[in-house]
């Protein structure tokens, strides 16, 4: 159990749009080095909760307390960019943080896409976009990293590599990570705490505890998980987006 002082703490947070309740009385704390994952069906309020953490949505009720001068890195699901706007990856990173070229080169190297720096963002594949968005978030040296469906549009080996990368990042800079995911499959292997959301918090805890919780099983009955049954294999390599496999010093430590 992570007992560090929370970086962000939500108490009894509710969000309503007119008559529609998007979130109801949610308590949540994000602590350094902790990976928290939000799971839940469509419309369960996962994105709304993430937006409250990001400060884009203000709660109708309840309080959000943040550490002063907290830096948040955000990796949105996808970016729809008008074709009329020419933009290189390098310029895209500069927009997030007026940084020097060396820092931008270093962060792209860190997420394994150094070769994309001068590429137009309009030519990026789904997986490459994810890496670039992660690089932009990391460039801010965030205390909290929020990722909305980071694995969407990425193939299985790409997802695997991405979650591996997130763990490495967490270990390197010690940030808290909040993930939104549909992907029960990977969530369980890469997470410290799972929060199962359906407007309110149905259940939360470590992956093993949550998986046995009746509330979780009611939302995700085992038969609907199909061949996405939980698996916890050990990685002995990971893939660069170019496709070459590399040895990985540190595999899963849980």
């Amino acid at each position, binding site marked *: 159990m992570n007992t560090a002082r929370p970086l962000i703490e939500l108490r009894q947070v509710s969000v309503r749009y007119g008559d529609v309740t998007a979130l109801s009385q949610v308590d949540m704390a994000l602590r350094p080095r902790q990976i928290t994952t939000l799971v839940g069906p469509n419309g369960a309020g996962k994105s709304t909760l993430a937006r409250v953490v*990001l*400060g*884009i949505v203000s709660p109708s009720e309840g309080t959000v307390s943040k550490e002063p001068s907290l830096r*948040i*890195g*955000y990796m*949105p699901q996808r*970016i729809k*960019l*008008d074709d*009329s*706007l*020419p*933009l*290189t990856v390098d*310029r*895209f990173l*500069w*927009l*997030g*943080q*007026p940084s020097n070229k060396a820092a931008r080169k270093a962060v792209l190297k860190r997420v394994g896409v150094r070769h994309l720096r001068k590429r*137009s963002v309009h030519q990026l594949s789904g997986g490459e976009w994810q890496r670039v968005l992660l690089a*932009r978030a990391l460039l*801010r040296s965030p205390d909290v990293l*929020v990722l909305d469906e980071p694995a969407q549009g990425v193939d299985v080996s790409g997802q695997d590599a991405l979650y591996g990368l997130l763990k490495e990042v967490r270990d390197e800079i010690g940030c808290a990570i909040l993930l939104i995911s549909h992907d029960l499959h990977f969530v369980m292997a890469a997470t410290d705490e799972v929060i199962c959301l359906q407007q309110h918090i149905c259940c939360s805890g470590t992956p093993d505890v949550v998986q046995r919780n009746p509330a979780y099983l009611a939302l995700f009955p085992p038969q609907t998980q199909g061949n996405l049954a939980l698996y916890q294999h050990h990685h002995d390599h990971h893939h660069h987006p170019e496709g070459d496999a590399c040895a990985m010093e540190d595999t899963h430590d849980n």
Partner: protein
Amino acid sequence: MIIELLLPPLLAGLAIALVCGPMGAFVVWRRMAFFGDTLAHGSLLGAAFGLAVGMALYPAVILCCVMLALILTALQRQQFIANDTLLGIVAHTTLALGIVALSLLPQVKVDLFGFLFGDLLAVGLAEAGLLWLGASLILLVLVLNWRQLLSITVNEELAKVEGVPTHLTRTLLMVLLALLIASALRTVGVLLITSLLVIPPAAARRFSPTPEHMAILASIIGMVAVVGGLAMSWFLDTPVGPSIVLAAAGAFLTSLILPARA
């Protein structure tokens, strides 16, 4: 002789085209062409208002345009009707109101054609100087806020999380656009200002690897169009405003033929 006659219009046109490059790029990137159109129509109402209360033209037009921009920016946050519907209602209502108001002013004889299509040749040296002053001011504000403006254009939520005051930045862009459109009223006119905002960046797009490149290239294309339009007007005795737009359109068509570079 020719120089004395053509120099003030040329300088005035170049000042407008210079600012239209980066401002027009934002109009294209953010799909704000209709918004620009609406402000341009509103500037006519400003002219009528100025004549009615005996105010000088530029202050009246600028006041009206900036107020309209602020009202529209506020109204666009509502969900009641779609934005383009809202703009359609406001644009044509203000245009109609402006024309009706001008016709009701009994003793004033107004050159409506001049307002609609511009009257660049009537610009004097003092007015050209004033336009350069305004242009420099808009450019300075643009440069100082460039990263924020570009950041909210690429992705507003990401910009907000990264600490950009998104609402303020968006309002700033609208006010700058209103200032530009109000200053351009006399030169290219209500109906043609949007094309001078949209055509040069569109022509520049295929040759630009970065936003800055596109904005600067759009300025250059716009300035070439001003020179070309003035020349066409001089030699063929055509109206200046439409000639400038035709020159810009010619540049755009040429850009489609040339091989892309970005």
